């Protein structure tokens, strides 16, 4: 059931003087075209998005190719470090949908969290880090998909700078030469949430819990859609194309109730430097401008977002606020974790919710998930590790929970032009 009034938005806008519809002719320079032009001029190699891919609509009416499998996963510092169920859920979704991926060790951080926090770097170093990672993906034969919203936004900035400044390209080319790597720019810079959006139909089809009674608020991540904005996914069917469709479209496909709130455009308060050394700002902003507004205007069961810093900030900030008599307690997680839960992923072995701060148990109960039983199962695994019966929890331990039903794309009649993520 659609819970976002796209028709209402469209009809309201149509009545406005001049309308507010974006026109393709107003779009900025097409960086993908420029990237291909520079390849033709011998400046670099362009890694093409190979089939199978899905074409998704972008802000000014363009199309963006999002690869469905054979993807090289550019992991996120904060996700892997402090909210590991985020990354694990992304991988689990690939496994559950039987879509091939690579989890590489020859990947570094984009280093942009540090750059936006401390400025202890420069344009050439940042571009060097980005292009080293892109070269590593290219050499593996897999296509880069980026987990962190800040990495995604920053890499789009790097692409823009590399396209426009030959002196920067020359400097980075020299670095790559010393590393023994080719200078490679991907045809598209792809965020994992675009992949989740692309396969939302497959996810919804494999949902094992009814989430129609779950109300959701969505925090769109700033660095996803504000940095190099023309590259973000905007779907006319969601918010009338007036906001990015990412996350909302997934929650809607799952059948959850997506509720609106007035401060949706505000950032989370992460601040990059502030979250680490000036958290009074972060806590205050996250509580006063986001979580309390969501509570008062939408009273959601859960807040979904699609970036590292946003999950961290919105989740962790609520504890201290409670100490100051701000009675707010809304669980926060990524849409990947929510989708995995709805598909039957284990809340602790896969979604790793014990790393989160705000109480998520009422949400699980409302979804019909027996969290007490699940925690007992997880503790059993921990005891097994403690006793030395096994060294690690492995994919074999959690894949068994996935219903053994093939969703191979060929069997679904996939073609790039008509597969829209809905089965």
């Amino acid at each position, binding site marked *: 059931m659609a819970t976002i009034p796209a028709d209402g938005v469209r009809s309201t806008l149509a009545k406005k003087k001049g309308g507010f519809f974006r026109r393709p002719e107003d779009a900025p320079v097409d960086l993908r075209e420029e990237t291909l032009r520079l390849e033709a001029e011998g400046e670099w190699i362009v890694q093409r998005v190979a089939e199978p891919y899905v074409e998704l609509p972008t802000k000014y009416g363009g199309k963006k190719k999002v690869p469905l499998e054979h993807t090289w996963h550019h*992991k996120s*510092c*904060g*996700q*892997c*470090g402090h909210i*590991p169920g985020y*990354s694990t859920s992304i*991988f*689990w979704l690939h496994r559950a949908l039987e879509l091939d991926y690579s989890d590489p*060790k*020859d990947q*570094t*951080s984009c*280093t942009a*969290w*540090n750059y936006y*926090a*401390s*400025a*202890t*770097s*420069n*344009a*050439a*170093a940042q571009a*060097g880090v980005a292009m*080293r990672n892109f070269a590593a993906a290219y050499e593996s034969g897999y296509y880069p998909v980026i987990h962190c919203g800040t990495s995604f936004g920053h890499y789009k900035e790097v692409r823009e*700078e590399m396209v426009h400044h030959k002196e920067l390209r020359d400097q980075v080319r020299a670095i790559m030469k*010393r*590393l023994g790597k080719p200078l490679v720019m991907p045809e598209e810079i792809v965020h994992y949430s675009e992949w989740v959006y692309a396969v939302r139909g497959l996810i919804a089809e494999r949902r094992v819990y009814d989430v129609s009674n779950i109300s959701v608020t969505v925090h769109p991540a*700033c660095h996803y859609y*504000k*940095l190099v*904005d023309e590259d973000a996914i905007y779907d006319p069917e969601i918010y009338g194309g007036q906001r990015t469709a990412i996350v909302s479209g997934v929650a809607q496909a799952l059948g959850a109730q997506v509720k609106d709130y007035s401060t949706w*455009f505000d*950032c989370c*308060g992460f*601040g*990059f*430097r502030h979250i*680490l*050394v000036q958290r009074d*700002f972060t*806590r*205050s*902003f996250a509580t006063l*401008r986001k979580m309390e507004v969501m509570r008062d205007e939408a009273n959601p069961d859960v807040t979904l977002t699609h970036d590292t810093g946003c999950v961290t900030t919105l989740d*962790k900030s609520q504890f*201290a606020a409670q100490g100051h008599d701000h009675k707010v307690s809304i669980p926060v997680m990524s849409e990947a974790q929510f989708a995995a839960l709805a598909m039957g992923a284990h809340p602790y072995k*896969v979604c790793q919710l*014990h*790393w989160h*701060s705000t109480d998520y148990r009422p949400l699980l109960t409302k979804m019909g998930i027996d969290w007490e039983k699940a925690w007992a199962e997880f503790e059993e*695994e921990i005891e097994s*590790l403690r006793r030395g019966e096994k060294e*690690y929890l*492995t*994919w074999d331990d*959690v894949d068994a929970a996935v219903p053994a039903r093939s969703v191979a794309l060929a069997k679904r009649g996939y073609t790039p032009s008509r597969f829209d993520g809905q089965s």
Partner: protein
Amino acid sequence: MAKYFDSSPSKIKYDDVPYEKKEELFQQVKSDIRFDDYLYGCYECGICVAACPSARFYDFSPRRIAQALAREDVELVFQQMNEDVWDCSQCFSCLRCPRGNNPGGLITIMREVSINNGLRTAKEALEGYSRIIYKIMSTGTQVSPDMLQPEAFPDWGPEVKQVSDNLDLWRRALPPETMHTTTTSWEVDEKTIVELYLIWSMTGVMDLIRNVDKNLHMILTDVMEERLEEAGYEAN
């Protein structure tokens, strides 16, 4: 040297410098390759301020940043490099600018110039941050699981202590094998770390670190030179 004091107690005190130095700093900002892509003028509409999270909690305005740079107001730019730029959240909500300005990007450049020139206010803004810079530059990942210590994050709730107490077991209970680490976010292979060190070395980032924190520079240099030499490279 004269000290400037703002009426707001939250403002950082900073040292005055001759006008020629301020002009030099401004020219460094202006000569950055990104400057012309980030500043086109200002309608003074205030949309950037309305969208700015820092403007709600600090005496801070992205509009004033864009205006000062557009007017080439060298004195005000110097003041902003000392007083304002570290308040920015770097969320880039200000990219809503109808003129196409990027005040957040301009601030990134101003911060970089502040660091490059070792301004005292930049060093003060980064106090307590050195271990993060060390982590990202030496390991290739920014935050590690073992940073989750209750004394460092008392405001994040009792779950932080649980994570800390069970860290090794809980990391081993992650299905992706790349994430069985406690000192880095994921496992980065040796060759990749060396390649990262070469990037820092070839782009002048180590010189930049020296300007802002000599001790950190010394420690990082030791770590990097040893591994670069083991891999058959010279640091420079």
